């Protein structure tokens, strides 16, 4: 009896048993898929609006600043920020308590003299943001949100200031009443200056003082030159106000946004749990059915049993992975591509988690224990694998292959070119599968012959 034939017979037996064990199948595949979908939704909710305490220490001044035709107050400023975050207006002590208790994600403070600084234009006004160091990921998200808000407000202010400058240019050219940056007065304007000079020259020439009138010509040339240059400055000033414009158009409706992290997380948890639980259950069931003593008498070696069940787990994981990716492609805005390249990635991830589950199954005495132990070990490791940019979390979760799987999946989803790190991730998955496969084979061999 060749190992291949024995393996294929056991494979058919396992498939038959699985098809007949609907409840077990629901637990082994349905549960991880449901968890994966819920996780994807939860992780995609990362763009939810954080709650930020708003402390206005400049409220007593009651000052406002005139920008162009608009008169801005602190409240106007807060209202604009509310496009990005939910603001809760608190005093400094309340805000500090709320941050410490976790009721708010950050505290945004408007210091005294903010409006005065804004009005003077002499030094840029500063906002103070305090975040909770215990929630670094959320703090980063808030910083990005508020930076985005401040950027847009700055852009609006810059546009208003440029408009004022352009007003001033018009005043310099045409003359009129000045009221800008806190200054007031009346300007003659270049056009009127030129007109006045021409009248003076005409009068001088009529009085026979043509020489004196000619000496005013350079002054008139200067006025004309300044006027022409100021005309050129107008489009330049507008360009400075918004050097790059973003044209935002709404896409086709009906698709939910989902992040690459959410998809990768769903795949890691889904595949990880399916692989670990399925493999652990299949192997421990052989023991629970007491057939290992029969199989171990030379009918099937432990290596064949391990290889067959690891392959079955990997195929099941690949199928689940493709189903999840298909759901993502059909129902979300994420463009899933590289369908062929997903095959080795999903197979290797399934092999790694399956081999890990086989080790659990070989060590456990019964199926229930194997499932419980598999779940208790795999679930936290899978969740740890989703912590971005943390090497300790990565290597801890790599114990079951989840960390490399997460990076490989994210690489396939977002990298414009498939990076060497994606292939390296697949290599690590192969090594993890091999190590746990060998360990499971040794453990099973001892079970069969001890």
């Amino acid at each position, binding site marked *: 009896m060749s190992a291949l034939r024995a393996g294929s017979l056991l494979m058919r*037996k396992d498939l*038959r048993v699985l098809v*007949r064990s609907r409840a077990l199948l629901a637990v082994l595949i349905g549960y991880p898929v449901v968890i994966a979908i819920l996780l994807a939704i939860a992780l995609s909710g990362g763009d939810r609006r954080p709650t930020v305490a708003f402390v206005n220490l400049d409220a007593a001044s009651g000052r406002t600043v005139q920008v162009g035709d608009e008169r801005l107050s602190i409240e106007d400023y807060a209202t604009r920020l509310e496009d990005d975050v939910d603001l809760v207006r608190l005093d400094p002590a309340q805000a500090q308590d709320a941050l410490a208790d976790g009721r708010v994600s950050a505290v945004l403070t408007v210091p005294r003299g903010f409006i005065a600084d804004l009005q003077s234009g002499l030094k840029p006004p500063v906002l103070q943001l305090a975040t909770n160091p215990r929630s670094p990921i959320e703090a980063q998200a808030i910083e990005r949100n508020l930076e985005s808000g401040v950027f847009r407000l700055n852009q609006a202010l810059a546009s208003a200031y440029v408009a004022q400058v352009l007003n001033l240019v018009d005043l310099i050219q045409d003359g009129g009443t000045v009221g800008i940056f806190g200054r007031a007065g009346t300007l003659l304007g270049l056009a009127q200056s030129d007109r006045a000079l021409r009248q003076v020259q005409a009068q001088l020439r009529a009085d026979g003082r043509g020489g004196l009138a000619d000496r005013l010509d350079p002054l008139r040339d200067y006025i004309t030159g300044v006027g022409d240059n100021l005309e050129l400055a107008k489009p330049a000033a507008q360009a400075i106000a918004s050097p790059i414009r973003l044209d935002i158009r709404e896409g086709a409706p009906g698709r939910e946004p989902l992040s690459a992290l959410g998809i990768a997380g769903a795949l890691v948890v889904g595949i990880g749990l399916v692989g670990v639980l399925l493999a652990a259950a299949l192997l421990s069931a052989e023991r629970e*059915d*007491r057939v290992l*003593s*029969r*199989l171990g008498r030379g009918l099937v070696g432990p290596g064949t049993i391990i290889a067959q069940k690891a392959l079955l787990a990997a195929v099941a994981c690949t199928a689940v992975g493709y189903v999840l990716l298909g759901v993502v492609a059909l129902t979300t805005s994420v463009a899933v591509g590289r369908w062929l390249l997903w095959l080795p990635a999903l197979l290797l991830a399934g092999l790694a988690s399956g081999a890990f589950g086989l080790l659990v199954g070989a060590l456990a005495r019964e199926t229930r224990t194997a499932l419980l132990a598999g779940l208790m070990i795999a679930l936290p490791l899978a969740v740890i694998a989703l912590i971005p940019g943390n090497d300790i979390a990565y290597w801890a979760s790599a114990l079951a292959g989840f960390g490399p799987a997460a990076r490989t999946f994210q690489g396939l989803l977002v990298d414009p070119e498939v990076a060497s790190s994606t292939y390296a991730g697949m290599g690590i998955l192969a090594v993890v599968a091999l190590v746990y496969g060998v360990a499971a084979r040794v453990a099973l061999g001892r079970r069969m*012959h*001890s």
Partner: protein
Amino acid sequence: MHDALLRATGIARHYGSFEALAPLDLEIRPGERIALTGPNGAGKTTLLTMLAGVHPPGSGAITWSDAARGHVGWVPQRPAVYPRLSVRENLMLFAGLEGAADPGGTADQLIARADLQEVAARRAGALSTGTLQRLNLAVALAGSPRLLLLDEPTGTLSPDQRMRLWQWLDGLVAADGMAIAFSTQSMEEAAARADRVLVLGRGRLLHDGPAGTLDDAAFLAMVEDA
């Protein structure tokens, strides 16, 4: 060894510091019916699992004749079949694993021999204790054994089931001429069903002789002295 199916020389086994079986020599010849008896923990199952190849001996060696090599059937005490597969599927699987060219045909033959026709399509997990034990035995026959090793085959059966099982087993042995070695807690069963009785106590072979030569008093004295 000219006519022995199996010869064990100095086989022994320890579990840690516990001596489960002291060094023991044993020969089993074709057609022989051997009963292994003795109190709990005497080493009966340990000896049978080593002879069946389930566990390797800790020391010593086991050699098989050409006729017996690869043709030793093993019937564990508790049925070792897949409860979610039907009777026929179980037999087909094990016949396939034993290398049968036509697993389906072999399964059908085994079903007929074990009188399992009525339950052939029924899941093993739904069988009565007696029928399940017959399936357990039929699986062991899938490899056309010359020697059948049975670990307390009637231990879980009611008297009538026990009687029917022995009638069927007697028929099989008579038809195939295979040797059997079985363990039992019952001296009566050993005397009635075997032509040679081995008594084990505390991992040692205390007696090896023809059935019916050991009365109750001698057995008790032997076991208590061990």
